[in-house]
């Protein structure tokens, strides 16, 4: 189990650095629109799999609110978060197609 | 409209056991509704039980009594078939009363 743990931690460190540098450039309304559309599309796909998460919808709503206030940095960041959550819910639905059997009482 | 008061009064030996369940929201005034507005306080303040013209039990209730409140007590006396009068009044001036037969 420790192998997986260390790999996660190292992955986290890499992402941390990458995330910090890319966000320095301010996001424009266009960046927000693109990120928001991507997040909505991913969440729609999760809907088709009947497996959306409530937190995805919440992140989308936050992003919209931030955009309405003109804070496109925050709006873009929250849209990216929404997309990440939507993608995770899609992954969960597809992987569970087989994984559920592990729990089944036999 | 059916009474809001459900009573079970059972005489055994020389005491009568009384249980009452009352249909009432008992709103404390500290809770918000779905739209985020405060639900105003609305709770039964006084509940009285009378047998043979005399009060055998009086409850003074605050906002911390559960919704659809329940109370149980017993008193000496009371025989099968006799009446037990129950009445309540709440902080918004609403009230209800009913008479139950002792079983």
């Amino acid at each position, binding site marked *: 189990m420790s192998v997986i743990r260390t790999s996660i931690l190292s992955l986290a460190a890499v992402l941390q650095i990458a995330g910090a540098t890319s966000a320095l450039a301010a996001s424009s309304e266009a960046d927000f629109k693109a990120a928001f559309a991507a997040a909505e599309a991913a969440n729609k796909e999760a809907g088709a799999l009947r497996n959306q998460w409530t937190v995805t919808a919440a992140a989308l709503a936050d992003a919209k609110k931030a955009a309405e206030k003109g804070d496109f940095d925050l709006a873009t960041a929250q849209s990216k978060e929404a997309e990440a959550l939507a993608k995770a819910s899609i992954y969960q639905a597809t992987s569970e197609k087989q994984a559920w059997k592990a729990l089944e009482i036999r | 409209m059916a009474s809001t008061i459900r009573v079970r009064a059972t005489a055994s030996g020389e005491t009568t056991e009384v249980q009452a369940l009352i249909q009432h929201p008992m709103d404390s005034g500290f*809770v918000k509704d779905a739209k985020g507005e405060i639900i105003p306080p609305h709770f039964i303040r006084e509940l009285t039980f009378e047998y043979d013209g005399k009060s055998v039990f*009086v409850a003074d209730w605050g*906002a911390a*009594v559960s919704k659809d409140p329940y109370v*149980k007590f017993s008193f000496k006396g009371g025989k099968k078939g006799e009446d037990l009068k129950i009445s309540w009044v709440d902080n918004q001036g609403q009230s209800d009363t009913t008479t139950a037969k002792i079983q």
Partner: protein
Amino acid sequence: MTITDNGFSATRRLILQGVAAVALVGPGNLGFSLAPAFAAANDKYPEDAFKAKGDADAIKALYGKAAEPSDKVKLDAPEIAENGAVVPISVSTTLADVTSISFLVSENPNALAASYRIPAGTMPSVANRLKMAKTSNVIAIVEAGGKLYSATKEVKVTVGGCGG
């Protein structure tokens, strides 16, 4: 059950206190306005006691004296409440000449939850279901022969489920 901050309820209490104070000073109650009204013994709704915040203030407002713990007061309350909205609590006692029984939840916004007048001939035992805002001491008070006896038990209360 979300509990609001106390801003709103504080103002509500101020308004009510104002009203009650006027009532007390009114002609009928002039005699009472000096000493706190001992409502429990007579037949009036103990307004001030239900508005008091802490359990000590509530007991003082209700009975005008302090209670001493007694093992003759049997308080039955769960160790962990299944839900703070419906906590079954009951008390019984072997003490004689019981005239009043009350229940207080110390950590509730107003400690006094319920008070019962026990006429002669009624057994000194009551069961009821109370609301508890959070983990708190539950205190049962029995007024017997003019003296106050009490029993206290802590009841753990928390929300259920895995959260929103």
